[in-house]
């Protein structure tokens, strides 16, 4: 089961890299692979059972994979020291802007279309 899952995930990764190249590298290969896997699952080409265990194992522990990239700041010390005010201000402001715009619009649309589909999700 695990072997099959790894096989499917890697196949879609390669398919994603190929399609990324075809569109001139606009979207990273892994993201293309994710979209293709999603479409294949929706279309019934890939059975959810066949990838479930591998997909969960990878995504449940993915935070550890961010550590090496983060350690890279030790090589970028000067750039951060020069720009930290801008970086931190932008990070805080933009995060809160995304939070409010997404939340506000989702709430507006949900209330607006309440009558069309009454609380389908519990």
């Amino acid at each position: 089961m695990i072997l099959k899952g790894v096989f499917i995930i890697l196949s879609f990764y390669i398919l994603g890299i190929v399609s990324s190249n075809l569109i001139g590298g606009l979207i990273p290969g892994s993201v293309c692979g994710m979209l293709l896997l999603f479409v294949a699952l929706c279309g019934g080409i890939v059975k959810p059972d066949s990838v479930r265990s591998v997909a969960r194992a990878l995504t449940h522990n993915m935070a550890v994979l961010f550590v090496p990239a983060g350690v890279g700041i030790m090589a970028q010390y000067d750039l951060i020291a020069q720009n930290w005010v801008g970086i931190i201000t932008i990070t805080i402001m933009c995060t809160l802007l995304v939070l409010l715009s997404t939340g506000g619009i989702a709430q507006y649309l949900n209330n607006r279309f309440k009558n069309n589909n009454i609380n389908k999700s519990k």
Partner: protein
Amino acid sequence: MKDILSSTPAMLLLVIGSYYIGTLLYRRLRSAWVHPVAVAMILCIVVLLILGIDYSTFQAGTAFLDFLLGPTVVALGYLLYEQLEHLRGREIAIFVATIIGASVGIASVVLLGYFFNLDEALIASLAPKSATMPIAIPLSEQSGGLPAITAVVVFLTGIVGSLIGPWLLDKCGITHPIARGLALGSASHGIGTSRAIELGAIEGAVSGLAIGLTGVAISLLLPLVEWMI
């Protein structure tokens, strides 16, 4: 001895070990500031500095973990599928809100970036910051950003959203559980989602879905923005 300390197994052990210590600490203290990723990053940097191992050696030793980011993003396609099944009938509201949120995120980074006079490599590093880490890193690389800066900023984005998010949503009268979950996941990816799960089951599920959708939206919008400027 130096050879052994800077070998691939030693570098992998350093990352896994410091992350493991981070999870133990997090379980005891339960504060967003001691997130295992932050603890692990700091521990790794301290150990590397003490042992006098440079970043390129570390990078070569942990290449396997970098590789795994790719299959992990592909695996997110499965999570997206699984979560979308639970939210049938709400798709349009969810899609529209996510796309607008992602656009606001990219536009505000670019505009404020020019305002603060940041150079282009920094703006490119910050632009995908609301996307989940494995998606944000290749996006940043692709548009001339610095993956290390992106990693740190993405992490900060998660912390900011999960610490201030629920309070700000209350203040602004955003009370609908779907809207709250979506907002936390879109703005603050996985770290926001772990906060959303604490708020409730619906919030958690929608937030998980928002991670994948926002990742897709940002990957599609970013090339468009680059093409425009």
